[in-house]
């Protein structure tokens, strides 16, 4: 309903939202000097190292940047493979 009215009013494309989303991404990289390519390489190496100690699913690993105020944080989410399955094997 509201989207129809917004279309009539020409509000279906808010360029300000686009600006905000683009800036969010640009600022993360400006602040950390970490390019998307470097972040991918970091992820691959991290998976290598962790796999030597525990069993993980490489495809489920998520790594990204978060910010709290002007503080940047690297967040890695690495789910472990269930150990129960290993025991039944």
């Amino acid at each position, binding site marked *: 309903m509201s989207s129809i*009215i*917004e279309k009539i009013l*020409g*509000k279906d494309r808010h360029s*300000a*939202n686009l600006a*905000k989303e683009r*800036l969010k991404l640009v*600022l993360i990289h400006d602040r950390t000097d970490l390019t998307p390519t470097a972040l991918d390489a970091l992820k691959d190496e991290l998976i290598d190292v962790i796999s030597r100690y525990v069993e993980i699913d490489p495809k489920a690993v998520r790594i990204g940047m978060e910010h709290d105020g*002007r503080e940047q944080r690297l967040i890695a989410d690495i789910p472990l493979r269930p150990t129960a399955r290993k025991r039944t094997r």
Partner: protein
Amino acid sequence: MTAKVVTVTSGKGGVGKTTATANLAAALAAEGSKVVCIDADIGLRNLDVVLGLENRIVYDIVDVVEGRCRLRQAMIRDKRLPELYLIPAAQTRDKSAISPSDMIRLCDDLRSEYDWIMIDSPAGIERGFRNAIAPADVVIVVTNPEVSAVRDADRIIGLIEAEEKGPARLIVNRLRPDMIRRGDMLAIEDILELLAVDLIGVIPEDEMVVMSTNRGVPVSIDGKSRAGQAFRNISRRLKGEEVPFINLEEQGGLLGRLSRLIRPGGN
């Protein structure tokens, strides 16, 4: 009397640093403070023309630093506001003609006799910017509600923090409430969320700024313009007064209000 040193900077050029410096200095002087403005943009001086003092320059800041004149000889007194002075930049030299320690020494010489020292920084992140923030007690970052200006503001805020001159305070200049209302300009809350700094003021786009610059009379002491009022509010906030922010976005007509109702999460 111990002057507070306020540096106005931005990263990106053309966002309104010189206009903000001139207007804040004039507003503070009009309220009775003793104010010295320093143009730190050596090679590209402009604070003199914005203040309407360009015809009275004899010596400049490089003459002071290199010992060709005394500090007081380079200070131009504004005849309209007798407690407002300008130390102009040199026009035929470059940023390397002075150093951060020169700026600190110069400000220390002035501190005991004035209330405010307002420094207009050049654009960029190099020597000129470092000269301008070296003596600062307060750093004001000016930005516009657009992608390139916000990005550069973020960079400069990071550098200010690295130099331990933070937290920077933000002026959003040239805001167009009509464009924000239709979702085509970054809103103040968006900019503050992205940059994570404190706001000290918002200046609406106002053709009176161009007209007053044409005349060489800062808009903050000339008439009843909205931009002038916004600059006067910032000068009071600098003095520590609590001045509520004017809600520029709340002046929409029926359509503006209607579109806000039907657009959840809008402005």
